[in-house]
C-alpha cells in the first residue's frame, strides 16, 4: 500500500470525523452557552411558582412579579452545606399564617416525581402540593399535574388514603385518577413520607 492510499483509507476518515465532531460540538456548545442563563431562570421560575402554589399563595402571571412576591414572602432555610431544607412562606395578604414548603423527589411509575409539599405552621395540615417534574404516562398518570387533582390536597391531613374518583369525603382521603392507580399511589406515598419527615426537618 502506498503512502497516499494509507492516508486516504485510514487517516482521512479519522481526521474527517474529528473535524466534523469539532465543528458540530462547537456550534451546539455555543447555542447552549447562549441560552444557559435563560434555561436556569426558567427552571428557577418553575420552582418558585411551585413553592408559592404549595403554600396556598395565589401568584401573578408575570415572571417579574412572581420574582418580587417570592423574595418578599419566601425564605429559604438551608443546612450547613447550603442545600435547601425547606422554604418558609411568611404570612401575607395572600395567605393567613405561615406555611412551610418542602421540595422532595420520589419514584413514580416511569421515573422520578419531584414535588413541592406545603404544610401549615403546625406541620399537620397540607396547604397544597405542586408537581415540579414527572415522567408519568401522558394523558393518564401525567394528569397528576392537573389542578383538579392537586387542588384536592389542600386542607388534607396525613396519612392519606386514595379512593376512586368522586368518592373522597374525609380529610385523609384523596381521589385517585381513573386509569392511573399506580401514579396516584406513588404520589400519595411521596406526600405521606414527606409529611412524616416534615416535623423533624422543620425546626420552629
Amino acid at each position: 500500500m502506498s503512502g497516499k492510499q494509507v492516508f486516504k483509507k485510514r487517516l482521512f476518515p479519522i481526521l474527517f470525523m474529528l473535524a466534523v465532531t469539532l465543528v458540530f460540538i462547537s456550534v451546539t456548545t455555543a447555542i447552549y452557552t447562549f441560552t444557559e442563563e435563560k434555561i436556569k431562570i426558567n427552571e428557577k421560575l418553575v420552582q418558585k411558582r411551585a413553592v408559592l402554589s404549595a403554600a396556598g399563595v395565589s401568584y401573578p402571571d408575570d415572571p417579574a412579579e412572581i420574582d418580587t412576591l417570592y423574595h418578599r414572602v419566601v425564605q429559604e432555610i438551608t443546612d450547613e452545606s447550603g442545600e435547601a431544607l425547606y422554604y418558609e412562606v411568611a404570612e401575607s395578604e395572600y395567605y393567613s399564617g405561615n406555611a412551610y414548603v418542602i421540595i422532595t423527589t420520589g419514584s413514580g411509575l416511569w421515573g422520578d416525581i419531584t414535588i413541592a409539599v406545603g404544610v401549615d405552621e403546625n406541620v399537620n395540615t397540607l396547604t397544597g402540593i405542586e408537581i415540579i417534574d414527572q415522567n408519568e404516562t401522558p394523558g393518564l398518570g401525567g394528569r397528576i399535574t392537573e389542578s383538579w387533582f392537586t387542588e384536592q390536597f389542600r386542607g388534607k391531613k396525613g396519612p392519606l388514603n386514595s379512593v376512586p374518583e368522586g368518592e373522597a369525603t374525609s380529610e385523609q382521603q384523596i381521589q385517585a385518577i381513573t386509569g392511573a392507580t399506580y401514579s396516584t399511589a406513588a404520589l400519595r406515598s411521596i406526600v405521606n413520607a414527606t409529611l412524616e419527615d416534615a416535623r423533624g426537618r422543620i425546626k420552629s
Partner: protein
Amino acid sequence: MEKFKIKRVFSDDIGRNNPVFAQVLGICSTLAVTNVLKNTVVMCVGLIFTTSLSNFTVSLMRNYIPARVRMMVETLIIASYVIIVDIVLKAYFPDISRQLGPYVGLIITNCIIMGRTEAFALSNPPGLSFLDGIASGFGYSYVLLIIAVVREILGSGTIWGIRIVGDWWTNWSIMVMAPGAFFVLALFIWVVKGQISEEGEKK
C-alpha cells in the same frame, strides 16, 4: 426537470411512499406522542426541522464524507440538530418542553431522518434534499396529526385540551395508552393502503 423532481419528492413522501404508512418508519414516536394533539404538533415541528436540515447538511458534505464513516457523520449531524431543538424549547417554550420530557431527545432515533439522509441526501443536491426532508416531515406529520386527533377525542374527549364532547362521554383509557395507537395506526394503514392499491388496479 427540476420541477418534476420536486413534485415527485412531495407526492412520493406524502402519498405512495409515505414514511409512516408505506415504509412503516418512525413508529416509536407515532405510538408515543399521539395521545395528546399539542405534544404531537411540537414533535412534528421538531421532526420537520431536523429532517430538512440534516438532509441539507449531509447533502452539502456528501462528496467529502468517507463512505465507511458516513453513518457516524449522519448521526452526529442529526444529534446536533436535535440538541438544538431541545435547547431552544427549554429556553423559549419551557412549558411545552416540560410536557414533552424525553420525547424531544428521542427524535434522534427516528428512523425517518436517518433513512432520508442515507437514501436521498447522499445522492442528491442540497436544495432538493432539503425539500425532501420537509416533504418526509410533512408525510410523517399529517399521519400523526390524524392519529392524535382520533386518540385525543376517544381517549380524553378533548381536542387541543378543549373539551368537545359532553359529560356523558366515557374516556377510552386504552386510547391514551400505547395499544390505542396500534389500533388507530393499523386502521389508518388498512384504509389508506386499500385506497392506493385500488388506484393502482384502475390504471
